[in-house]
């Protein structure tokens, strides 16, 4: 494999992996629901995004043609991840979950 390609793929995969890991750690370690919400959103957008970029480069090089399936996956993720995060936050506010003092903003009536 061309080493340049190899480098590029590796970098993207590692970026994706790091974000997924950080996101997962955040999911378990962060103190309240609203802060924890940040973890998985990072993992789904940047984490998966990195892996997808790596895959896109790898397969485009392998098949000698531009592979766009992955772009579609990214698109769907970019559309859906914020919505699900939004819905989760709304649910949390509705249920009046406990907050850290540092968590800014006030929940309003849903």
């Amino acid at each position, binding site marked *: 494999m061309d080493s340049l390609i190899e480098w590029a793929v590796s970098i993207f995969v590692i970026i994706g992996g790091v974000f997924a890991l950080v996101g997962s750690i955040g999911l378990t370690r962060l103190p309240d629901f609203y802060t924890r919400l940040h973890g998985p959103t990072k993992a789904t957008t940047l984490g998966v995004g990195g892996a997808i970029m790596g895959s896109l480069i790898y397969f485009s090089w392998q098949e000698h043609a531009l592979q766009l399936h992955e772009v579609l996956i990214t698109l*769907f993720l970019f559309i859906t991840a914020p*919505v699900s995060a939004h*819905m989760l936050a*709304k649910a949390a506010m509705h*249920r009046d979950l406990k907050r850290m003092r540092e968590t800014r903003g006030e929940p309003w009536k849903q």
Partner: protein
Amino acid sequence: MNLAFVVMLPFLGACLPPLVERVSANRTLMAFAAALMPATALALLVSPAMQVFAGETLHSTLPWIPSLDLSLAFRLDGLALLFALLVLGIGLLVILYARYYLSAKEKAGRFYAYLLLFMGAMLGVVTSDNLLLLVVFWELTSLSSFLLIGFWGHQTGARKGARMAMTVTGMGGLALLAGVLLIGDVVGTFNLQTVLESGDVIRSNPWYPVILCLVLLGVFTKSAQFPFHFWLPHAMAAPTPVSAYLHSATMVKAGVFLLARLYPALAGTDLWFMLVSMAGMLTLLWAAFVALFQHDLKGLLAYSTISHLGLITLLFGLNREMAAVAAVFHIINHATFKASLFMAAGIIDHETGTRDMRRINGLWKYMPYTAVLAMVASAAMAGVPLLNGFLSKEMFFAETLGSHQLGALSWILPVGATLGGVFSVAYSARFIHDVFFNGEPVNLPKYPPHEPPRYMKVPVEILVALCVAVGVFPAITVAGLLAVAASATLGGTLPEYHLSIWHGFNLPLVMSFVATIGGVLAYTQRRRLFDVWARLPQLDAKLVFEGRVQQIGRWAAALTGRFQNGSLQSYVAWLVTLVAVIMLTQLAPLSGLDLSQYSLPMDGVAILCTAMLVAAALLTTVLHRHRMTSIMSLSVVGLMVSLLFVRFSAPDLALTQLSVEVVTMLLLMLAMYFLPVRTKVESSSIRVIRDILLAVICGAGVATLAFLVMTGETSTISQFFMDNSKPGGGGTNVVNVILVDFRGFDTFGEITVLGVAAMGIYALLKDLELRSAKYDSLGRPWARDAHPLILVTISRPLLPLALLIAVYIFLRGHNLPGGGFVAGLITSVALVLQYVASGVGWVHSRMPGDYHPVVALGVLLAGLTGVGSWAFGYPFLTSDFTYIYWPVVGKFELATAMLFDTGVFLTVVGATLLMLANLGKLSLLDDKREDA
């Protein structure tokens, strides 16, 4: 000309009267419509009849189910011709009679349709040349007679009588079927001709007694022979034309017809003699005795019919050729005089409004013409000289005298016959004297009675004229028909006999004389006889029968209630227990498992996935009371399963599993909305232990089974599918080609089941009202923002994208993972997202919310695709494919399988949305109620 066509004519004709009834309520028109086909059939039979009289036997055969040796084989020999003439001829007279019998309020069209159905079935019975076909028509006569007896379904008597007749003759039909199957087994074919020619084979077979008993059960139930005679009097709840047709001329004659038909094959043994003649004798005497005490006009005739059928049965049972001739002769005579008597009874009932002979008296003054007809017919029934009944009764007496099979007890037969004659004269005398003389009518509902309409008497006149003609000039009227019918019964040979009124002064004449004098004496002494009768224990067959039926019903309900008690858990427990038992018994004898054969490589990912799968499954069970958590962990199970599918190269399954998972979660969420968030502990610990045991046994069994299958050395057909997928089915995705092509019929069945299930859910949810909780688990009211703006805004552009993907998955399905099923699920999920985001109202204002037509369309499309291959001469669901070149896309495959797959797609979309949307709509009911 094809005989099958003649038999089909009444069935075709059955459609006409109801059609006419839609246009006009004119009963004459309906009668003509009903008479059209039987008259045509009769006309078509003229030229074959000539051939039969010339000594030929006509056959015609159409294959039906050759593998079962069941063919539409018909024959016309003398016996079949005789019965066909009876069925069609008397049928036509009954149609004319019923025109005047039925009142304008009654549904004459339906009545005629039933009558013609019965006529066709009866015609089929008598002309069948295949024993299985005969049984089919035999059952059809039971069914159509049920409809006819129960025609006045508003009367409880009619319903009960119909049910009783149906049960008794139906049971007999089953016994007959068993007997016929045994005959087929012994002879090797169901072809009637062969069976008739192999009488010796059957009689010498060790199964002969069983065959005979089974066939006789069929005969005796149908012909109301003792001890199955009880249904016939209750069948008198039928309209009188039905009684005249079914219970005198045709249906009850089917039993004795079968005796005649199978005479060459089964008769001639001692067992035959004992069973048939003794049953006949008992029936003859008992029914003739009981007939005398009936106050109901039709009841008297019913018992007299039973008694005459007993006489015919007795004659067949004597094992004498001449007796069989006499039996056939009496079949003809009885049909003519009894049908006319029933019609006369119907006229009397019609004109007086009652059938009670204690009230109908002295009708001679009011309807002398009908009285003459009825008196002649009942004189024929009594066996008065110069009428047809006399001739066959003389022959009957002569045959009982000639039989010596009972040894020293042979005198029983002629004595019994004479006694039967005495009673028969007595009840005939009662019929004449009580009804037409014996003082004045008592308290008639319709007073004064008068003669019926002119044409209502025509059928009676014709039949009575026949009685006289046969009685006076037997040689030139009936002799030819009797000769061919009797010779067909006897298998070709015919004994020497003469039909004449005067045989000289002999013993049979003396017996006739004794019977007549005795009968008249018995009638004059009837007061004493009635006293004796009154002291006999009375048994109402209807009550006994209904009691038994209800008892069986209660038992069945109790038994069903034990298993089907409404608890889903117990159903599952029963099912799983059965599986556990089967697996334990089947797996136990196998040798131990050889774990070393497991050859798939194990890696970290697979082990991790499996471990998570196990953990999630356990968690689901443990947390089942926290529904939400439990569902979440269930979805983990589903995800892990689809990952494992990917790992073990089953992308199709993974795709399907993933989409099914989404739909299932949605469904569970929707259902959960109506359930409490937490459930109480309800099951006892014994039950928990039982369930754990069952689960462990079944799980272990399935695991062992799976392991055995995967490591087994058996050859599979996978290689065939692999090899033929591309050349045969035109697709490289073997899974999809199997689904839509190799095993397309399976898939068709499955989508049909899916469609039926969807309809079932639709029916269950329709008009269902559920109260949902007003507050969430924390006691807060639900959020007011039901359709959050962001979700709504984002979900709308997602729809076309998702549909695009569905199309993509669908189109590539034939060659790459995908196909109609997955595409259907993706489409459904995309649409359900719109329901969730924007609400039912929003969606239904933009697209129709009825999904059951979509399901139906899908199944229909798939079915039509399958049927389409017939047009090209291929079997059902043969697929074809071709390649076309499109300008931009390039080479593109078109397969009929794709059309089939579209059917699958539509069914899946329709079924899924039907379930989800209707379940979702339930939650709106509360809002509506509040609005209202």
